[in-house]
């Protein structure tokens, strides 16, 4: 029987919690695609249990299965038995990496480059971001595309090139002061600028700070922040995830702030669970508990403190729909709050999106690792959006934002709910 490292950290009762009733099946995008049990949540849990029971080794097939799972956590919402699937999923992926069953030189290189270099070193990520901006803004990207130079890239990268997000000229540190104080201060909050969010949606970060200020929150934003660890935990690197968590905790004076704010669903659903990640670290276990108790998604925080409803304005009504990011609705059980905010914004004609809580296929890096399945989900999502006739789709996660924008094309605008709220506040002052 194989020695287990990461799965051995979990109590057996976590797998036992699954009583294989099958209620998760209709919620699982991969099961609905193949109708094969191993592609379902309870099937994957059965495999994990078989490994724990010594009936199955950590095999390549198991590894592939764990990476076929989107990690969308729709099963978590569907599960009446309260199975902690996120934990099972993260530990199983870590086990897969530990055993190296998916090894290939190419895969190892990309994992090293992205996980161990780029996202582990904030300065490097931003340096690459700058280069990317230069490449895109200077028009070189267009020339390269025309020249056919891209043909030297491997096929999957070549296909991804046109979907590369457009990097912003100014990152969050250029747009946000390290401390910004409102006229009437009610709270003091810490702001997480994220990694992708920082490079591609630094404007959403600015909007978030504006909205917080408008609601009496003093905002503390540490400089040059790193990844919160979500990327690592979701991709089988729990050790580095713990490292990132420690760095995130150290960047704040936790006692002095009322909450830690994120506006990215994928980050939020991870960074509320530092307690589990750092449970065996005597120096950080207590701090992690404090951190978890203060971590909030922006919409959650705004509703909690009773955000100010913006004044009505004269702007034309825009048909708008809301896509629920998986890691917001399933990962954090936050569904009502963003809607409450959207319903309070003047000028939005909100229409319901069919299957709003279904995954759009972004799922972290899934659209890179499993492009086919991701594309199917993207297409389904785009079709549902087209049905609503909406001009604006609102979603609160950078991955979904990019995936949906690529899916719906330029005629439909994708927005973060907080950007809409920030704009509504701004148009008040104009009047």
């Amino acid at each position, binding site marked *: 029987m194989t020695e287990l490292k990461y799965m*051995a*950290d979990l109590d057996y009762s976590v797998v036992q919690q699954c*009583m294989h009733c*099958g209620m998760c099946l209709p919620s699982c995008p991969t099961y609905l695609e193949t109708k094969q049990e191993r592609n379902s949540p309870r099937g994957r849990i*059965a*495999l994990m*249990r*078989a490994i724990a029971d010594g009936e199955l080794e950590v*095999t390549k097939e198991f590894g592939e299965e764990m990476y076929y799972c989107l990690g969308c956590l729709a099963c978590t919402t569907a599960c009446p*038995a309260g199975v902690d699937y996120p934990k099972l999923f993260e530990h199983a992926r870590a086990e897969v990496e530990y055993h190296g069953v998916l090894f290939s030189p190419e895969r190892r290189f990309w994992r090293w480059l992205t996980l161990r270099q780029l996202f582990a070193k904030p300065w490097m990520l931003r340096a690459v971001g700058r280069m990317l901006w230069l490449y895109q803004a200077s028009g070189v990207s267009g020339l390269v595309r025309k020249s056919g130079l891209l043909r030297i890239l491997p096929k999957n990268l070549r296909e991804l090139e046109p979907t590369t997000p457009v990097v912003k000229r100014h990152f969050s540190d250029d747009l946000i002061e390290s401390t910004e104080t409102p006229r009437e201060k009610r709270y003091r909050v810490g702001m997480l600028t994220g990694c992708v969010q920082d490079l591609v949606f630094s404007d959403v970060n600015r909007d978030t700070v504006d909205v917080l200020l408008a609601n009496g929150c003093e905002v503390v934003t540490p400089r040059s922040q790193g990844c919160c660890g979500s990327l690592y935990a979701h991709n089988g690197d729990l050790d580095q995830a713990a490292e990132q968590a420690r760095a995130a905790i150290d960047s704040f004076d936790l006692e002095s702030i009322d909450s830690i704010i994120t506006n990215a669903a994928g980050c939020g659903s991870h960074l509320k669970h530092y307690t589990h990640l750092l449970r065996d670290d005597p120096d950080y276990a207590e701090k992690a508990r404090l951190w978890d108790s203060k971590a909030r998604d922006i919409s959650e925080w705004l509703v909690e403190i009773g955000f100010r409803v913006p004044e009505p304005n004269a702007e034309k009504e825009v048909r708008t729909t809301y896509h629920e990011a998986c890691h917001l609705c399933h990962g954090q059980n936050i569904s009502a709050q963003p809607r409450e905010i959207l319903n309070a914004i003047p000028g939005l004609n909100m229409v319901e999106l069919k299957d709003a809580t279904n995954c759009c296929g972004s799922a972290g890096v899934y659209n890179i690792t499993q492009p086919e399945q991701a594309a199917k989900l993207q297409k389904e999502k785009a079709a549902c959006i087209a049905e609503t006739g909406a001009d604006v789709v609102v979603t609160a996660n950078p991955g979904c934002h990019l995936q949906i924008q690529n899916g719906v094309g330029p005629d439909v605008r994708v927005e973060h709910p907080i950007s809409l709220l920030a704009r509504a506040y701004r148009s008040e002052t104009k009047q």
Partner: protein
Amino acid sequence: MRIRKKASSIRPLRFGAIAGYFVALHMTNHGKFSPGSPLGALFIDAVGEGNLLTEAEDLIPYGFDGTAALKNRAVCVVLPRSTEAVGEVMKLAAAEGIPVVTRGSGTGLSGGSVPVDGGIVLCLVHLDTILEVDPANLTILCESGVITKAVDDAANPHGLFYPPDPGSMKISTIGGNVANNSGGLRGLKYGVTRDYVMGMEVVLPSGETAWLGSKCVKDVAGYSMKDLFIGSEGTLGIITKVLLKLVPRPKARRTLLASFDSMEAAARTVSEIIAQQIIPCTLEFLDRKTCGCVEDYAKVGLPTEAAAVVLMETDGAESVVDEESEAMASIAKENGAISVEKARDDAHAARLATARRSAFSALARIRPTTILEDVTVPRSRLVEIVSFVEETAQRHQLDIATFGHFGDGNVHPTILTDETDHEEMERVEHALSDIFDKTIELGGTITGEHGVGLAKKPFLPRQFDDASYGLLKQVKSAIDPHCLLNPGKIFDSESAES
């Protein structure tokens, strides 16, 4: 995962008399079916490339259904895409003498679709086409892998209704419902699956295909063969198509939630409602423990302090449902209800019903293993069995929650336990035995809607007299003489030849 129990080797999940069955990994036919083998190639010919699964990673997830602590590994899983393919598979299996276990979504609660030693699993989820909705004859014809809820969804646009609604209706297949004669929340007024089956296509153990029944409301040509296959748990034939009766969709429904400080008060209310000749479509009860778990999951505002909560629903014409719901509310109050709450709107009513459907799974929150029973007694004896369950829990020092269908006497005592605690599991076995005996004493049945499968097999002889038990086996050997279909389920069976 850390096997917290002593570090020694893994102890099998002994389930003794409850399951009457435990199997480790049986490999008898293994290898025989690998895609490269001659037999494997024949199966691939029958079902098509990609529809034969033989790897451990593929088979393990087909090793169980929704029943606790029962598992086994099939030698292969086949996923046919047509009735013809099912027939081909059956012919091959018959020629080779390989047992076949038919399965839909694997949500059964008696171990009926758990693989048997050396057997294949025939999974019908790809036979998922609704073939015809016939509003003139009020019928729907669909393949057996169609999801139960999809049947009703297809009827809806025609103003029609398919009432049976088992707890797993969002994923259970209609074929599985027919094979187990599934019940649901609406049994009192609308009956069970059997009451809707007009006909079916069945692949017989020989591989031949038979059509049983017709669209005719009156049909007495020969034995009612379809009725034999309803509830046969895959032991007689493989149901590939079903023809179902539909009824006019009720125009309106009203949902009430009443809470009581004793189960007796709740029962009095229910008896009085029925005595006043009101037949609601739903009369469901949940005890305090169940309410707590369901509320924890569904957050629909169930009262978690009451000793019993009754969910009542009446459907029909607008004026009638208003009148009936008013009457039910006052009956509840007269019989000592602490509170009676009306569902705010359809969405709220639907959420309440969904919450009730999740009761079994939600109870899994308390302990690692959840053993669900479905004993059923004549309606008038319901309070007796519920209080007996409470006493039994105390006597054996067990955690038992109870919920169920007040209207039709079907009770779900749910034992919350841990299959790895062998001392406790012994007490569980005793408790179950006591509950079954009491049920039979009260003129009830050991299973109202889940079927016998493996889980209740050891107790079936207690309920049947010798002649009727023997009849079961005679029917089996007449239709499946070589004992190829789901052998060892319902009762121990041997091939007629051996």
